[in-house]
């Protein structure tokens, strides 16, 4: 019996924090690729500490819905899941290449496949592009547009910036957008100065965050100048100086994120049948005609 456990941060304050996790779990559940799909949280229930004991299957894949390798994926989750003998070297990662480690979870005395976070998977690049398509409502968006991939930056962990750069570089190589830049909230180049980094009249701003919350709904819109105060709201697009900014909100809310969760499990050995194709198809942006 094959089980998927999606683990995410969750929130004590924001009721919508868990929404993307539930949505992606539902998308994957509908494919029938897993006998069960469970969700566990750091700040909600079931907690990381107790989620595995709710799992019935004997082949368990744990996929962290986090944007980068670091404190949560390397320390908190393995500790709270009680993965026996965990050491970050099990992933053998350079900060971007964590794939999976097979360890016994002491809580249930069964092996689990502990996967790398969704945010550093190569398929995440496609989600960022898909997010740009969604917010512009144009499945061919690219020509005449710049794309800003925005992350938190180095607070606590340098891998956060690595993931942003990785995806920005991969998108730039595709020559789809006129310009692609990696920008940060708390380090240079800063998202506050977004118009300075682009020549294009239109720029899609995609924050590499899992859920909408304080950073994506208050910080970034105010810092970029989409609004004076987040409570006023903002239009999409909003002109700042001479740049029309298409603010996408957290990339993690994009339905195609379910695909990255599946890719992580597949890389760790899960048998998915046609689920990957199914999810790519069902989450597409409708063409206008």
């Amino acid at each position, binding site marked *: 019996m094959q089980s998927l456990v999606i683990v995410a941060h969750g*929130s*004590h*304050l*924001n*009721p919508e924090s868990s929404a993307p996790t*539930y949505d992606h779990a*539902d998308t994957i559940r509908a494919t029938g690729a897993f006998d069960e799909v469970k969700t566990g949280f*750091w*700040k*909600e*229930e*079931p*907690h990381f*500490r*107790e*989620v595995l*004991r*709710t799992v*019935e299957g004997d082949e368990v894949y744990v996929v962290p819905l986090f944007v980068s390798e670091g*404190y949560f994926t390397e*320390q*908190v989750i393995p*500790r709270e899941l009680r993965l026996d003998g965990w050491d970050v070297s099990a992933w053998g990662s350079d900060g971007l290449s964590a794939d999976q480690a097979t360890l016994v979870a002491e*809580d249930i005395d069964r092996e689990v496949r502990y996967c790398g976070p969704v945010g550093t998977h190569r398929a995440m690049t496609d989600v960022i592009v898909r997010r740009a398509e969604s917010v512009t409502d144009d499945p061919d968006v690219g020509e005449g547009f710049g794309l800003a991939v925005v992350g938190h930056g180095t607070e*606590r962990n340098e891998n956060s910036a690595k993931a942003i750069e990785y995806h920005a570089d991969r998108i730039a190589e595709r020559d789809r957008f006129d310009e692609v830049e990696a920008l940060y909230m708390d380090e240079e180049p800063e998202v506050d100065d977004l118009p300075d980094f682009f020549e294009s009249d239109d720029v899609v701003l995609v924050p590499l965050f899992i859920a909408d919350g304080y950073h994506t709904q208050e910080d970034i819109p105010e810092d970029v100048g989409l609004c004076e105060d987040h409570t006023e709201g903002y239009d999409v697009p909003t002109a700042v100086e001479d740049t029309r900014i298409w603010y996408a909100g957290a990339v993690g809310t994009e339905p195609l994120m379910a695909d990255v969760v599946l890719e992580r499990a597949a890389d760790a050995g899960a048998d998915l049948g046609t689920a990957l194709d199914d999810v790519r198809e069902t989450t597409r942006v409708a063409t206008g005609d």
Partner: protein
Amino acid sequence: MADQSPDADRETDDDGSPTETQAADSEPAVPDIDLPSDAFDAVLDALGERADPDEGAPEPIRFEGFAVAVSGGDRADDADARYVLDPAGDDPRTGLSERELHAALAERAPAVTDWYAFERVVGEFGPRRAFLRWIEDADGATVAARYAALAEGIERAWGQLRVTARVTDRGERRYDVRHADDAGVPIDELDAHDDPLDAREIVKLDEKGRYRPLKTAPTLRDGWVFADLGPRDAYEVVETVYPATVANWHREREGDLDVTHWRETMERQSGIYGVVKTWDRGEGHEHVNWVAEACCDDSQCLKRREWEYDADTELDVDGGDGAFPCREPCSVVVSAARKWTRLESEQPRTYEFELTPSEKEQVEDIIDAVADGRIDEIREADTKEGANRYRARFLRAKRFDDEGNLGGVPTDEDAEE
């Protein structure tokens, strides 16, 4: 467990088990059960699975009061197979054809459908199986007693949930799950759901639309029902409303609940929560008593606190009466403890300001009203209440200076200069 329903005791004991009131006067009748073909086929399948040509006579399937086996050497999937029915304390009936076996099992349909319900529908998974068996006391009561009770409807409390189990005339279990406050309300007056995952939306906000960060807080809103569920879906609803509570309850019943006490939990914390371990200074556990009184009381959380200060030091406050255990300080407690660790590092100071006796009591009333979640109950014009809004505004107008300092006394002495 703080059961919110004042009528709860009429139907359940303190531990949530059904009372005997139904059976006291007239023994309810065992309903007529038709043996469905899927249950009979499952019996044949199970007999087939047990037949191993190399192992000699296969193990019989044991039902309550009798057992069934394939006659020696025959195979259950063979149309000519013969069967043995072995009633306890009576002579076995041998050489039964499949048709004769069906007739014999149809006469014993309650026991056969009971086997089918738990072995094939509910399945092996420990927490789910134990919970659904507990609902109808399947490890204590006879099939006849349970089917009679199920025909009337068996009700169980689980936190603020009311689970009702019934049996159909084909021996299938069906369940309703609703808020305890909605016990007895007709289904068509409630918001009906059938997908257990719908419960995620129900548990998100309380009746005033406020986010519920703690799923086991006694603030579950009412007005909904999951009606006519199968066993697995019933379990999923309960698991979604109160995640992992069944798993922990099951471990506790099995005698292997893994309790992690306060000190161990705080020692484990890292990052921004790492500071909480400094709150324990080897000066006793009074601060943890205060935490448990603040956060873990039945009025705040329906889990029964089983964790203590450490394995040798029990807290002095009650752990509550909940059906399901709390095995370690939760993330809400750890987050609050982080705040208290900082606040409690301050040294007390002596402030001097004047209050009338009534004003002192009013301050106490306000703290009580907030702590007990009563502020919404205090009527706008009820100025007898110290925590009444006009009373509070009057006190502020009289006793606060322009900077918001009580009695005009700055919080920080240095701020005076």
